């Protein structure tokens, strides 16, 4: 149970004022935004940083010697430093800006994958991966003739670690794993996975899209080789994301896209590539997006990821408990460690219908397969309703959700 004390871990009422959209009404009801795993809302400081950039500093980076270009470059690179500190990377060289988690994983597949994966090799993923950590490997596997191996999960929605141990054969050249499941909410034992993989000199990529927004993530402590996340799921803008990679790997990897900014010199005979991280950032990047992401990280760092984790854990526990009390409601998985997400199905009512009814109560949830069709197949369901939380959500909003679910059940009786 969440005591009122827990509500005081963070001054939620004050924090909510920083997010203009949270004042909205939907179908005449106050917005109850519980679709944070799809995308999070943005605080005013992030929104302002984007408009300030375009109003005051708009210019191209790394090119001009003029005042504006230097100012923009300083802010763009400042955001990189903020991100480096946020995940405790060794240097800015290890922080590559991408369009998001999907592009970060595709970058690794297309560079690391092209260089280091071949016929007879294996890549391990898990049954709970988002499609973005399945499809890029499948596409490449077809071309390079390597095999994709899948760590199965149990009914609780947890990895079968003994199966993982069995899969760790000498043929494995990479493990690519989701940190927090976006459809079940499971927090995977990534530290253990990385240790075991490293014992066999296998590098590990962590999809941290649903992790970095919920609790502290330290790449040195994890010792992961790659880590991917998206800006828009961590209170920043869409269209910007991050790939962290250990310098040693990044140096060995060929470039991703060719173009401007990623080169040192170009002639028709030979092109030499720029140093890290620019080797992987071809073309003019999303400068405003990077600056906005930097601001978002400053914002949550000010609140404190430890506090966010503690507050959200209470909120999730409360929601799970309340939903379990409703007859006919079944929660997807029962992981020992859960973050952010509660997925549920209601007997004889399709998630799509639940989603529409909840919308009319002002409640925004996601309904569908959440880009994790193998998880739906695993539980033999077509879809779920998913409530996903952020630190700005209130206990009262969990109650609104629960009451709305009760109402739907009443209508479909």
């Amino acid at each position, binding site marked *: 149970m969440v005591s009122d004390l827990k509500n005081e871990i963070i001054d939620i009422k004050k924090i909510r004022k920083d997010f203009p959209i949270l004042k909205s009404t939907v179908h005449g009801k106050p917005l109850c935004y519980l679709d944070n795993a799809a995308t999070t809302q943005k605080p005013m400081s992030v929104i302002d940083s984007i408009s300030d950039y375009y109003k005051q500093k708009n210019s191209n980076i790394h090119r001009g010697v003029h005042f504006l270009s230097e100012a923009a470059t300083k802010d763009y690179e400042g955001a990189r430093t903020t991100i480096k500190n946020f995940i405790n990377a060794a240097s800015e060289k290890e922080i590559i800006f991408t369009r998001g988690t999907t592009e970060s994983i595709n970058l690794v597949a297309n560079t690391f994958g092209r260089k280091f994966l071949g016929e007879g090799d294996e890549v391990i993923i898990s049954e709970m991966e988002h499609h973005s950590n399945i499809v890029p490997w499948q596409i490449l596997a077809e071309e390079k003739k390597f095999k994709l191996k899948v760590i199965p999960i149990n009914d609780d929605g947890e990895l079968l670690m003994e199966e993982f141990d069995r899969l760790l054969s000498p043929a494995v050249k990479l493990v690519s794993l989701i940190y927090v499941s976006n459809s079940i909410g499971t927090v995977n034992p990534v530290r253990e996975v990385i240790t075991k993989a490293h014992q066999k000199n296998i590098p590990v990529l962590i999809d941290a899209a649903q992790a970095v927004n919920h609790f502290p993530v330290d790449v040195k402590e994890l010792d992961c080789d790659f880590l991917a996340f998206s800006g828009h799921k961590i209170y920043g803008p869409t269209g910007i994301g991050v790939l962290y990679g250990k310098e040693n790997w990044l140096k060995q990897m060929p470039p991703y896209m060719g173009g401007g900014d990623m080169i040192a010199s170009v002639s028709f005979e030979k092109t030499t590539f720029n140093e890290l991280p620019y080797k992987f950032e071809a073309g003019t990047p999303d400068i405003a997006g990077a600056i906005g992401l930097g601001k978002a990280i400053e914002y949550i760092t000010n609140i404190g990821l430890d506090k966010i984790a503690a507050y959200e854990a209470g909120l999730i526990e409360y929601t799970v408990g309340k939903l379990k009390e409703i007859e006919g409601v079944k929660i997807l998985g029962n992981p020992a460690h859960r973050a952010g997400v509660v997925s549920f199905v209601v007997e004889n009512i*399709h998630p*799509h*219908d639940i989603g529409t009814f909840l919308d*009319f109560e002002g409640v925004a949830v996601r*309904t*569908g397969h959440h880009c994790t069709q193998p998880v739906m197949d695993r539980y033999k369901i077509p*879809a779920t309703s998913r409530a996903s939380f952020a630190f700005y959500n209130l206990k009262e909003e969990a109650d609104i959700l629960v009451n709305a679910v009760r109402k739907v059940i009443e*209508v*479909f009786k």
Partner: protein
Amino acid sequence: MDAELRELYQQVILDHNKSPRNYRAMEHHNHDAEGYNPLCGDKIRIYLYIEDERIKDISFQGSGCAISKASASIMSSILKGKTVEEAEQFFEKFHNLITGRLSDDPAREDLGKLAVFEGVKEFPARVKCASLAWHTMLSALKEEKEIVSTEHE
């Protein structure tokens, strides 16, 4: 309940969702097709038995929301005994109804039971739910072998 929502989830729709008509696999069918809505994972299979250009029997199976299930159920009860040409005309009418293009059409009077789906036009995200069964039926009529997807709606 909100009026707009009540309009979408009329009692008839809730009834058909609860006890769908013609919900079964048909052993001796001569046309069938599978429909799929990747957005929500809905799947449906339509079976037809066509003789002399007339739908002698129609049934369906699958999983989907109340709107898609009721749509398939009501469609099956309407089309049983109709000619292939009539079925195609009904498809046209139904499609215009749920996309809000039928407002002043004199044809709306022939809609019969289908009229309960008029509320769908206020919910663009749900048009695919209502039309999945119909697209699949049309595909079964033409005996197209590939899986029908609503993504071309």
